[in-house]
């Protein structure tokens, strides 16, 4: 699958910091947002999250999510609703960490571990 070029360019030119890609079901999206909130508040203020809706959401649910992002004052979240071909692959190519489910642990623990994993991945990239 060819990467979606506009997304690749956008990620390269506009998105700074480590990217965490969330490809989780709709019930897990609020938890992903909370983890991102904790990650940027307590561990990595430069971390970015791309949260892909893996199934279409009815508007009230999507609006609640948008509202939640506003309430958390999250400026580092990209909620992706309508995927185009090659876009997920572009996200995966740019992401430092890819999550397809919420790890089985408290959200504060996940955020802390995520910060450490990002650091490990960045170190291994730097030394490569």
């Amino acid at each position, binding site marked *: 699958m060819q990467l979606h070029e506009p997304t690749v360019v956008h990620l390269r030119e506009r998105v700074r910091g480590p990217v965490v890609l969330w490809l989780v079901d709709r019930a897990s999206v*609020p938890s992903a*947002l*909370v983890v991102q*909130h*904790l990650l940027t*508040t*307590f561990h990595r203020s430069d971390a970015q999250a791309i949260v892909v809706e893996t199934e279409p959401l*009815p*508007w*009230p649910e*999507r*609006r*609640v*999510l948008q*509202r*939640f992002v*506003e*309430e*958390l004052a999250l400026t580092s979240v990209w909620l992706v609703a309508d995927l185009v071909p090659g876009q997920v*692959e572009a996200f*995966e*190519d740019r*992401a430092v*960490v*890819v*999550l*397809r*489910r*919420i*790890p*089985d*642990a*408290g*959200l*504060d*623990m*996940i*955020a*802390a*571990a*995520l910060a*450490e*994993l990002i650091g490990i991945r960045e170190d291994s990239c730097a030394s490569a």
Partner: protein
Amino acid sequence: MSEELDDAAALEALIRTRADGYRLEPAATAVADAAALWDRSRQRVVPPDLDPARTAVAQAAERGRFTVPHVEASSRLPGGAAIHEAIGRSVERHLNDLVTQLDAYAAAVNEALAAVLTVLSAGVPHEHPDLVGQLETLQSRLDEFRRATP
């Protein structure tokens, strides 16, 4: 990266080995705060009740067929019935075209109403984010004032 790559297990492994090292009280508090914000977000987004509109549109669709009314031709005057029938046929001929136009118009209106309903069902929330933002600013200032006032 592989399409199947999932770092959830890697995070769980890290958490198992360093759980105590990850404990951070403010973060635990923030989780509780986020839960409250989630509830607030859900309460503020109330989907409109479209059932009355759906019923009204369905009723309009049922009534959207026009007919030329039947005119009673009987008469007490000699030859009156024949005159009534002749006039009735003449008027009906003129009205048929009008009824056809009205039917077409009603069908178009019904389609338009159904389209509006579809858009509303898909979601056009009526909200003023700027006003909500101003109210929240005022609320937080009021809270600060209350906290500062003995």
